[in-house]
């Protein structure tokens, strides 16, 4: 398992392109927002948590088709499926690799982009915490979507149509935590719900993804 994770990470770092692309996309989305809504700092401060969450979510979505598609194309997914490791574990490791290469950098630079959007001082901590807790769910759900569409020629658009509705609860609670944190309100309830969604997705969805992958590899 560790070897597989290590391999995926190495591929992501060395193959280039994919790794920095999500970050660049996140940056561009956040930069474009003030152009669209105007530069008033109090307005930006109010929408900053939501914009940062949407940006992170879209950046996650953008990199999903790389989670499984490359391995599908060169046939290494078939090899992995016949490996002694259960497919559930492989899928979990794929999600982990996606999380580390895509979501974790987003979490790390999100405070920096928060500065650009005049995020209120108390919001930084909760923004990072909410992204840290919520992005695993995004990665796991996204892997499920990627497994569904892996055999399709033009799966990209379909992938977003399938995955985005599944992202709704995570987005609601995650953005709520960040919003309440920025406004200085109590964040406990949405934070617990967010953590619950992440934990439940992590526990259950790999089985669904593996089942889907088995069907696709049949």
């Amino acid at each position, binding site marked *: 398992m560790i070897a597989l994770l290590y391999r995926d990470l190495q591929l992501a770092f060395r193959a280039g392109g994919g790794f920095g692309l999500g970050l660049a996309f996140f940056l561009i989305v956040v930069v474009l927002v003030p152009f669209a809504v105007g530069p008033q700092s109090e307005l930006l401060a109010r929408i900053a948590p939501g914009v940062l969450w949407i940006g992170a979510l879209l950046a996650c979505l953008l990199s999903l088709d790389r989670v499984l598609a490359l391995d599908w194309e060169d046939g290494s997914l078939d090899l992995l499926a016949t490996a002694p490791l259960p497919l559930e574990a492989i899928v979990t490791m794929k999600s982990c690799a996606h999380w580390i290469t895509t979501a974790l950098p987003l979490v790390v630079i999100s405070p920096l982009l928060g500065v650009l959007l005049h995020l209120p001082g108390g919001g930084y901590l909760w923004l990072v915490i909410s992204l840290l807790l919520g992005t695993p769910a995004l990665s796991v759900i996204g892997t499920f979507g990627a497994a569904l569409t892996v055999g399709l020629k033009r799966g990209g658009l*379909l992938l977003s149509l399938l995955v*985005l*509705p599944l992202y709704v609860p995570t987005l*609601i609670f995650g953005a*709520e935590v960040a919003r309440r944190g920025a406004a200085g309100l109590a964040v406990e309830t949405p934070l617990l719900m967010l953590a619950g*969604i992440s934990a439940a997705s992590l526990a259950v969805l790999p089985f669904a993804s593996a089942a889907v992958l088995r069907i696709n590899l049949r």
Partner: protein
Amino acid sequence: MSFWEYANPRKFLTTSERVLPLVWGLAAITTLVGLVWGFFFTPDDFRMGSTVKIIFLHVPSALMAINAWFMMLLASIIWIVRRHHVSALAAKAAAPVGAIMTVIALVTGAIWGQPMWGTWWEWDPRLTSFLVLFLFYLGYIALWEAIEDPDTAADLTSILCLVGSVFAVLSRYAVLFWNQGLHQGASLSLDKEENIADVFSNPLYVCMVGFALLFLALVLYRTGTEIRLRRMKALIARERLEG
């Protein structure tokens, strides 16, 4: 005589063909009676005026929009557990009907909301979760369309339906948390003291039965079409092999 007999496509087709005219007829009669009764033979509400009458389209379609998803979920589980092709095709046939019901509920709600709430659209929990439900329908239909091999498509969509159901319920409660509502509570329920007046509820019940029958007729009909389509493809494939 067991329910599973209808898993045989031929048995399903012959029976549904015999039942369909009856269901179509009953659906047409009850829907028409309910709507005419509701539109022309109920008094205007003292606060809402005649706009109250859109309830006779709005509530039944919303009801069927949710129940259609339940039916798909049930059919998907049957497909996963017992591998009856008719079940998978019934789920496929129900999806567009459910999506249209969702649209009807949303549109009639908007038409009613404009004079009553002063807005076409409000990010109210019920409205929002219906919109999300519509997105789920779209994703489900799109996945069916995208995959060529019918068995793979049936497997993948049924798993999507299972996972989607969980997330749809989750979204329902998430949006409840996210925004307080403008939409009124249920106006019909079995355990409440105060329901809407009988003048309105009686035609409403008729409309609900009518929509349920209409849904049944549409799903039976569309499932039959899907079965024939499947047969036709098999015939064409066989012909190609021989020729």
